[in-house]
């Protein structure tokens, strides 16, 4: 029953949002939505590229000559800026077309994968904060490689699910 209630709550929220002035404003010009989507894609480019490069560093496939923490520090600001930009552009897209995402099962799956991906990144960075060479020693080294592979798959999943939102009718 809880599921039914939460679904209808999302439907209500979706209907309410679609009647707000902001939503009407965003839908007024036909180029507003693709423009926001472009910002969203550029932000995802920054987000997944910084996540991918860090994962590839852990796997020894990117900048093997440089310490992992140096790469992590360099990529960190881009990941953070990208996530803020993703949240803002994504939020605007939800307000513009609430029924496209809020009641869409693929959107829910995307948020779930995103949470798992962020958790993976957090674990990798947490280790570096404890000790700059935390992941360099066994068995942590092996574990970091497994987390990196899972992270690569999860971030890919976020992008794939994001595009698939358009194909699953609300």
């Amino acid at each position, binding site marked *: 029953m809880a599921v039914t209630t939460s679904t209808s709550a999302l439907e209500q929220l979706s209907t309410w949002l679609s009647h707000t002035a902001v939503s009407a404003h965003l839908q007024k010009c*036909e*180029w507003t939505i*693709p*423009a926001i*989507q*472009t910002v969203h*894609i*550029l932000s*995802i*480019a*920054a987000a*997944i*590229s*910084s996540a*991918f*490069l860090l994962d*590839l560093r852990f796997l020894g496939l*990117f*900048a093997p000559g440089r310490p992992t923490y140096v790469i992590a520090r*360099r990529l960190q600001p881009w990941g953070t800026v990208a996530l803020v930009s993703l949240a803002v552009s994504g939020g605007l897209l939800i307000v513009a077309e609430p029924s496209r995402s809020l009641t869409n099962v693929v959107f829910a799956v995307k948020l779930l994968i995103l949470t798992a991906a962020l958790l993976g990144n957090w674990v990798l960075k947490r280790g570096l904060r404890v000790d700059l060479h935390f992941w360099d020693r066994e068995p942590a080294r092996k574990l970091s490689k497994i987390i990196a592979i899972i992270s690569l798959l999860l971030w*890919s999943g976020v*992008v*794939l699910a*994001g*595009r*698939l939102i*358009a*194909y699953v009718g609300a």
Partner: protein
Amino acid sequence: MGVQALFAELQQTPLATTIRENTVLFPGIESLHVLAVAFLVGSVAVVDLRLLGTRSLTRSIEELMAITLPWTWVAFATAVVTGCLLFTSNAVEYSQNVAFRAKLLVLALAGLNAAVFHSATCRGLKAWEYSLHTPPSVRVAGAVSLLCWVAIVALGRAIGFTSAL
């Protein structure tokens, strides 16, 4: 036979028909295309920002290119293969789409810019590769590349919102 007739024939091939009519194939390939383009743009930006002299200044341009460009090529190859498959499925319509044509044009410009940079500008690399203030020609190459890729993403997104000429 004109180009349009060729495209018409192309989209009648079994491969094109399968992609067009299968409910999973087109969205799947398109998602992969977006993923490849996203990593492509991100990895290109890493080098472009270094050329502009704003990022990764502790690393020489040559070294940064050597570690980043292999991944750029992986992403580019994936984007080209998936992009061609998507084009095949609806060749006539895409070839007449304004945004699609503009995207290919900007893509060619980005390619030309990269080719000029790697063949001509790069020659004097040793002289300034560690310098914090890269020469104007290098900064222009980085800026043109960044602008091109932003435009390519915008035009790519616009294809679905645009109709034929």
